[in-house]
């Protein structure tokens, strides 16, 4: 499904009819995510943060999905979806503090960068093992259904995750119990170095839903309106008791897998170039320009504002101290048991490591 055509005009038969303000806000959020991505990549190269996993090229799939969900719906992230969290109003400063693992990092330095969460924003927690979040999304939706609440759950994952154990379990349980879960599969072409067509023999990922008798949609994941429409349609069905939907968002990871990756080893410049031409930001901007609500000046100003905001956050983040060492010993259990209290005092009383910095 495409809605925004090559030339920036909309397919009138499919246009979901979002207000122009809303469409502009989508563009702004996508651009902001991209600016932040770019800045974080630089910070990592400069050795100021340890790691970053970005969403370059996948902004429409992520922000479009988030925008189609309602406030009461839950987002269960994979690890590239901080854009969705920011869309929900998560403070940028908090995110940047997290990226630096400082004392104001909500996770107090316990995780790698880009492992966000926020109960306030109904956003579960990023973890690294692939696929494990999928059954959680089913359980969350199942709980909402059992409790009679009007809440649905959108869960993000990649093409690679479709091979995981937990994908199979989650799809099966969601279909058997008809939970209001939207399976938002970012098919970005690769699982690190493995192209999707070697991840599975199936021609599309959407085909996989048939095994569970779950409805599936395939949409151009670089077309934010198509994404919005597909997710909204699935959401409507889920709210109406129609159960889960699998949505394949066809997109492309324009950058490396993460700052640790060098994608030149496993894919060609030409391939990347051809996808660069399908950049979701360029596409949407063309549309906005056609509708005369956006232009170069606005764009330059907006990007500059995003950069300035980000820079200020970084400045503050870098001034903050590291998390208290004590934080290493809390939250293992709700109440700290004796053995951890003992270990905490032993650690605090003992000698300190020579260096806290790494190479």
């Amino acid at each position, binding site marked *: 499904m495409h809605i925004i055509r090559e030339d920036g005009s909309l397919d009138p038969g499919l246009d979901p009819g979002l207000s122009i303000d809303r469409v502009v806000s989508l563009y702004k959020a996508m651009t902001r995510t991209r600016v932040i991505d770019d800045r974080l990549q630089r910070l990592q190269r400069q050795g100021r943060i340890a790691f970053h996993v970005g969403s370059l090229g996948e902004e429409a799939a992520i922000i479009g999905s988030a925008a189609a969900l309602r406030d009461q719906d839950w987002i269960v992230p994979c690890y590239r979806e901080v854009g969705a969290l920011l869309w929900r109003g998560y403070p940028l400063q908090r995110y940047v503090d997290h990226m630096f693992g400082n004392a104001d990092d*909500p*996770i*107090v330095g*316990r*995780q790698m960068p880009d*492992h966000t*969460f*926020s*109960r306030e924003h109904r956003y*579960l*927690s990023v*973890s690294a*093992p692939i696929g*494990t979040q*999928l*059954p*959680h*999304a*089913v*359980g*969350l*939706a*199942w*709980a*909402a259904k*059992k*409790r009679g609440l009007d809440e649905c759950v959108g869960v993000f994952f990649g093409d690679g995750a479709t091979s995981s*154990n*937990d994908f*199979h*379990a*989650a799809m*099966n*349980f969601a279909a*058997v119990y008809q939970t209001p879960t939207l399976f938002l599969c970012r098919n970005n072409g690769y699982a690190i170095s493995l192209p999707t067509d070697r991840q599975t023999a199936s021609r599309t990922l959407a085909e996989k839903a048939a095994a569970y008798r779950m409805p599936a949609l395939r949409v151009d994941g670089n077309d934010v309106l198509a994404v919005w429409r597909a997710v909204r349609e699935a959401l409507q069905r889920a709210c109406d008791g129609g159960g889960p939907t699998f949505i394949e968002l066809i997109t492309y990871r324009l950058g490396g897998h993460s700052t640790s990756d060098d994608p030149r080893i496993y894919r060609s410049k030409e391939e990347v170039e051809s996808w660069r031409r399908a950049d979701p930001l360029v596409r949407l901007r063309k549309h906005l320009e056609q509708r005369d609500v956006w232009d170069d000046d606005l764009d330059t100003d907006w990007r500059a504002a995003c950069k300035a905001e980000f820079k200020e956050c970084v400045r503050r983040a870098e001034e903050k101290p590291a998390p208290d060492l004590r*934080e290493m010993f*809390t*939250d*293992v*259990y*709700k109440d700290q*048991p*004796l*053995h951890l209290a003992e270990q905490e005092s032993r650690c605090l009383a003992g000698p300190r490591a020579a260096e806290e910095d790494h190479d």
Partner: protein
Amino acid sequence: MPEMNLVQAINSGLRGAMRENDDVLVMGEDVGRLGGVFRVTQGLQEEFGADRVIDTPLSESGIIGTAIGMALHGMRPVSEIQFADFIYPGFDQLVSEAAKYRYRTAGEYQVPLVVRTPYGGGIRGGQYHSQSPEALFIHTAGLKVVCPSNPYDAKGLLIEAIRDDDPVIFFEPKRVYRAVKMEVPEETYGVPLSEAKIVRAGEQVTCVAWGAMLYEAFSAAEEAAKQGIDTEVIDLRTLWPLDVETIVSSVKKTGRLVVVHEAPQTCGFGGELVALVTERAFLHLEAPPRRVTGWDTPFPQTHEHEYLPLAHRIIPALIETARY
């Protein structure tokens, strides 16, 4: 007060917890219509309906993984794994997710999940219906591990585990399921986690056990008493977080320790207990701590009574340790 065996007591505990709190539900393979392969959940689906006593597809990662999702929403699922031997397909969810969720969200989210599972030998179940994998979970920071030996404790500990805000693995000694009966209150009550119980006071040697092996430890102690050895027997009840104080004070008194468990010896919980006691009561030790455990082989079938650390193997350990 009615008499109950372990199966009935756990059933009563589940029933009570479900009556008390609508957020409690039970899920697993064959737990509903059939009432569980050991009949532990018998009658629950009749009382609470198929929505709260859920027959699931054959997927331990689904049973545990979706239960984690429910727990994140605030419900209190009790997942049954049909045999502890079959927990491994759900191992990733327990170790990577349930155990770490609170830590990795600085307490914003929690996973009040209980995973009940029958463990251990004694029913001629061979390799795949006899295992005691508690050490794997004790090694995993963030999980609590409980293993009752008798109906009263089982009911109270289960209720406490369900009320607890952390994930708890609840091991049920299947060898004891129908072997022991005792008075158990109809109403709900808690037995606090992390409190061991001295089930036999003694002066000369401390014997630590749990679950089905508690009975073997106890009868070995009685037997040793006939030979003049006075054994203190401790039922751990909760394996982790541990009531280390009760054990250490006992060993400080007796100067001697024998630990009993069904799991293979190597890297089992016995090694940890020996290490803890040696670290904390070194100068009190008058004999090397001993472990009487399953052998370091897969669990056999025909000779399971030679594999299990039954009384016949505990008695000489107690006597030799006491006379060291």
